[in-house]
C-alpha cells in the first residue's frame, strides 16, 4: 500500500483502493467481534478479567460498537463503492490515489479514535461517543474524500443513466456527511439539555437509516443481478425504495426517545413515520426476491448469493420489528431491554453484515482476479455467522422479554438479572462463534490473495468452480 501512496495515479493498478479497504474491513470485523465476545463474557461472568480500568466493561463496550460500525461496516461500504461505482459507470475510479489515502487516514483515525474511547475519553453520547476532534477528523479525512471519489466517478461515468445502486451510493454518502456534522453539533457548539439528548438519537437513527441500511441494500442491487445474470426485477420498485428511504427513514429519530420528555407531537409523528419504514423494506425485499427468479439454486451453490439472500431475508424480521416496536403500544414493554440489543444486532450483524460480506467476497475475488481459496472455509464462515447470530438474537430477545415483564410487573431488579443469566451465557457463545468464523474468513481471503487460482481475463470468479 505504502508504495502506491506517493505513486502517480495512472501507475496505481485499478482496484487497489478497494482491495485495501476490503482487507481493512475484515481485520476490523475480527477486532470488533472479538471485543464483542469479550464484552459478552463479562456480562455472563462479571469477575472475568476484573478490577482493571483498561478491561472494564464501560471502557470496552463502545469500542466494540464503533469498531464494527466505522471499521467493519463502513469500510466494507467504502470497498463496495470503490469497485461497484466504476463498474456500473463503465469507467475507472476517479482517483485510486485518493482512495488509498482515504483508506490510510481511515485506519489511522479509527485506531486513534478507538484508543481514546477505550481510555474513557468519550463525549458520553451513544453512537456519537467519539470526542469532537475525532468526529471532525472522520468527517474531513474519511467521509468527504470518500464522497468526492464516488461523486466524481459517477460524474465521469460512460453510461447515460445512473443505475439504482449508484443513486443510493451518491445520496447516502451525502446524507451521512450531513448527519455526521449536524448530529455532532452538540459537541461542536456545546448544545445542552434536550437538544443534546434529541440530537444524540437523531444521529444514531439517521446513521443507521441513511447510511447503513441504504448502502447495504444498494450492494444487493448490484451483487444479485451481477452474479445471477438476471436483470433487476423492477427499476420502478427501486425508485419506490429509494424515495421512501429518503422520505420515511429520515424522519422517525424521536422514536428512540419515546419514554423521554420530548414534545408529544414529535414522538407521535416519529412513530407513524417509523411504521412507514415498511414501505422501503417491502420494496427492497420483493425486488431482490423477484430478481432471483429461476436462479434459486445459486442460493445453495454460490457463496455471494447465499450471503446476499440471507441478508435480504433478515430484512423481513428486521423491518417487522423495526416498524412496530417503536409504536407506543409495544415500545413501553420492550424499551431499554435486551430485545433492542437483539434488534440492533439483527440490523448490523444479520441484515447488513451478510450483504457486505457478499460484496467483500465478490469484490476481492473480482479485483484480485483470484478464485476463492476455499469453499469449505467460506461455508464454515457462513454457518458460524448465521448460527452464532441466531443464538445471539434468540437469547437476547428472550432476555429482553424477561426484562420487559420484570419492568411492567415491578419485579425486583436483581431477580431479572438472575433470570437473564443463562441467556447471557448463550449470547457469549453466539458472539464467540461469530468471532471465530471471522478469523476463518480473514485466513480464507488472505489465502485467496496468495494462492487462489487466477481467474482468466474476461471471466467472472463465480463462473469458475470451487476447488477446496
Amino acid at each position, binding site marked *: 500500500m505504502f508504495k502506491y501512496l506517493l505513486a502517480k495515479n495512472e501507475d496505481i493498478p485499478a482496484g487497489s483502493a478497494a482491495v485495501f479497504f476490503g482487507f481493512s474491513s475484515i481485520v476490523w470485523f475480527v477486532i470488533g467481534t472479538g471485543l464483542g465476545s469479550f464484552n459478552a463474557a463479562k*456480562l455472563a461472568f*462479571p*469477575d472475568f478479567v*476484573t*478490577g482493571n480500568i483498561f478491561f*472494564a*466493561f*464501560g*471502557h470496552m*463496550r463502545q469500542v466494540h460498537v464503533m469498531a464494527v460500525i466505522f471499521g467493519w461496516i463502513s469500510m466494507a461500504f467504502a470497498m463496495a463503492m470503490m469497485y461497484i461505482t466504476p463498474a456500473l459507470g463503465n469507467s475507472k475510479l476517479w482517483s485510486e490515489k485518493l482512495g488509498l489515502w482515504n483508506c490510510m487516514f481511515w485506519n489511522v483515525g479509527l485506531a486513534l479514535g478507538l484508543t481514546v474511547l477505550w481510555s*474513557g*475519553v*468519550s463525549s*458520553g*453520547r*451513544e453512537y456519537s461517543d467519539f470526542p469532537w476532534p475525532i468526529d471532525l477528523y472522520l468527517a474531513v479525512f474519511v467521509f468527504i474524500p470518500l464522497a468526492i471519489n464516488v461523486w466524481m466517478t*459517477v*460524474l*465521469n*461515468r460512460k*453510461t*447515460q*443513466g445512473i443505475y439504482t445502486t449508484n443513486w443510493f451510493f451518491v445520496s447516502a454518502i451525502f*446524507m451521512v456527511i*450531513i448527519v455526521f456534522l*449536524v448530529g455532532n453539533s*452538540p459537541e461542536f457548539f*456545546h448544545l*445542552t*439539555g*434536550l*437538544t*443534546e*439528548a434529541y440530537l*444524540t438519537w*437523531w444521529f444514531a437513527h439517521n446513521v443507521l437509516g441513511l447510511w447503513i441500511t441504504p448502502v447495504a441494500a444498494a450492494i444487493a442491487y448490484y451483487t444479485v443481478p451481477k452474479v445471477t445474470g438476471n436483470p433487476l426485477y423492477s427499476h420502478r420498485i427501486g425508485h419506490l425504495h429509494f424515495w421512501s428511504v*429518503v*422520505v420515511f427513514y*429520515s*424522519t422517525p*429519530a*424521536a422514536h*428512540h426517545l419515546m*419514554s*423521554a*420528555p*420530548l*414534545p408529544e407531537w*414529535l414522538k407521535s*409523528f*416519529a412513530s407513524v413515520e417509523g411504521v412507514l419504514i415498511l414501505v422501503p423494506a417491502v420494496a427492497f425485499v420483493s425486488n431482490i426476491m423477484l430478481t432471483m427468479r429461476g436462479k434459486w439454486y445459486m442460493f445453495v451453490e454460490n457463496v455471494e448469493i447465499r450471503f446476499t439472500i440471507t441478508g435480504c431475508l433478515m430484512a423481513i424480521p428486521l423491518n417487522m420489528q423495526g416498524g412496530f416496536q417503536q409504536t407506543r403500544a409495544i415500545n*413501553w414493554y420492550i424499551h*431499554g*431491554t*435486551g430485545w433492542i440489543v437483539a434488534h440492533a444486532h439483527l440490523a448490523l450483524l444479520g441484515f447488513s453484515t451478510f450483504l457486505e460480506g457478499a460484496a467483500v467476497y465478490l469484490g476481492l475475488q473480482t479485483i484480485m482476479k483470484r478464485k476463492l481459496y476455499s469453499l469449505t472455509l467460506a461455508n464454515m464462515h457462513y454457518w458460524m455467522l448465521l448460527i452464532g447470530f441466531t443464538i445471539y438474537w434468540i437469547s437476547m430477545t428472550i432476555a429482553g422479554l424477561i426484562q420487559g415483564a420484570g*419492568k*411492567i410487573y*415491578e419485579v425486583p*431488579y*436483581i431477580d431479572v438479572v438472575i433470570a437473564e443469566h443463562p441467556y447471557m451465557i448463550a449470547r457469549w457463545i453466539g458472539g464467540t462463534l461469530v468471532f471465530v468464523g471471522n478469523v476463518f474468513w480473514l485466513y480464507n481471503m488472505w489465502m485467496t490473495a496468495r494462492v487462489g487460482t487466477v481467474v482468466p481475463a474476461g471471466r467472472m470468479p463465480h463462473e469458475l468452480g470451487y476447488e477446496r
Partner: protein
Amino acid sequence: MAGFREYKIGTRIFALAFGGSMCITLLLPSINIAAVSSTDIALAKSLSAGHETGFNLDDPFLQGWNKPFVVSLKADPKTGQPLAEAQTVYVYQKGTTFPAGILHPRILGAGIEELSVQQGHIGDAKKDAGAVFTVSKGMYDGKARSFVENLTTTKGWTPADVLRVAKDEDISHTGKGKTMFVREGCWWCHTLLPEQTQDWQVFGAPPMLGDFNGESPTAFGSDRKAPDLMHVGSRNSSREWMMMHFFNPRLVQPHSIMPRFDYLWGEKDAAGQKIDFAKWRSEYTEYAEGKRVTAPEVPSYASDSEIRSLIDFMISLK
C-alpha cells in the same frame, strides 16, 4: 462528462424531500425545545455538574478537572455565624468554566433568565475570580420563580470564603462524579430516565420537560441492564453500602453482574496507606470459595479519590 443533467428533476426532488425531513425533525422541534424553561431540578443539576462532563478541552482526559463543588453551607462565610438552616451553594473556584445557563442565560427560560440577570447578577460573575451561586426564590410577572443568584456579587461571598468555613463532609464533588459516571460508562447499563408509563413505583417519577436545561451530556442510557439511577439517592443514601458495592458488588449483592470499580480508589486509602489490591483479591477469593468466614474489609477511600466523587454524584441523584 455525462454529469447529473438528466437528473435535474430528481436532484430537486431529493433536495425538497431531504430538506423537508430536516425541517420537520430539526427546525420544528428546536423551536419547541428552545421554549422550555428550566425546572429547579435542572438549575441544581447544571450548577452542580458545571459546564460539561463529557469530553471537553478543559478536561480532555475526563479526570474531573475544572468542576465546581456543591457545598452545604452551615455558617456565614463572612462572619462565621451559624446559619438558621443549611444553604446549598455551588462554588466555582477561579478558572472554573461556568455552566451553559450562566454563559447563555436564555437557556434558563422565561422569567428565570430575567430574575437571574437582574436580581441574581449572574452577568457579573467572572471566571478569573470564580463565583459562588445558589438557587433563590423570587417573583416575576406575578408568578413565583426560582432563579440563579451570584452570591459573590450579592453577598460578597468568594469561593475561598465558602471553602474556608465548609468541612469536607459538607462538600460534594458532584461534577467530578458525573464525569466519572460518563468516563466509566455507568450509563451503558444504568439509565438516567425512568419511563413515563411504568417506572413510578420502582424507580420514581419520570423527568419533566425542563429537567435537562443546561445539562451535557444528558446520558439517558438506552440499555437497562441494571436499575435506573435517576432517583437512586432517594432510595439508598448509605455511603457505606455504596463503598462496598463499588469495590466489589458481589459483597452486598451476590447475584450482581456489575463490574468491580476498585481501581477508582487510586493508590492510597483514607489514612494515606498504600492499598494492597492483590492481597484483598486473594482474600476475597478465599472468602468466595468458603475458606474464609468474612470478606476482607473494604479500604476507606481518600477524600480526593475518584470513587468519592462518584459516590457524591450517586447520593446527589435524589
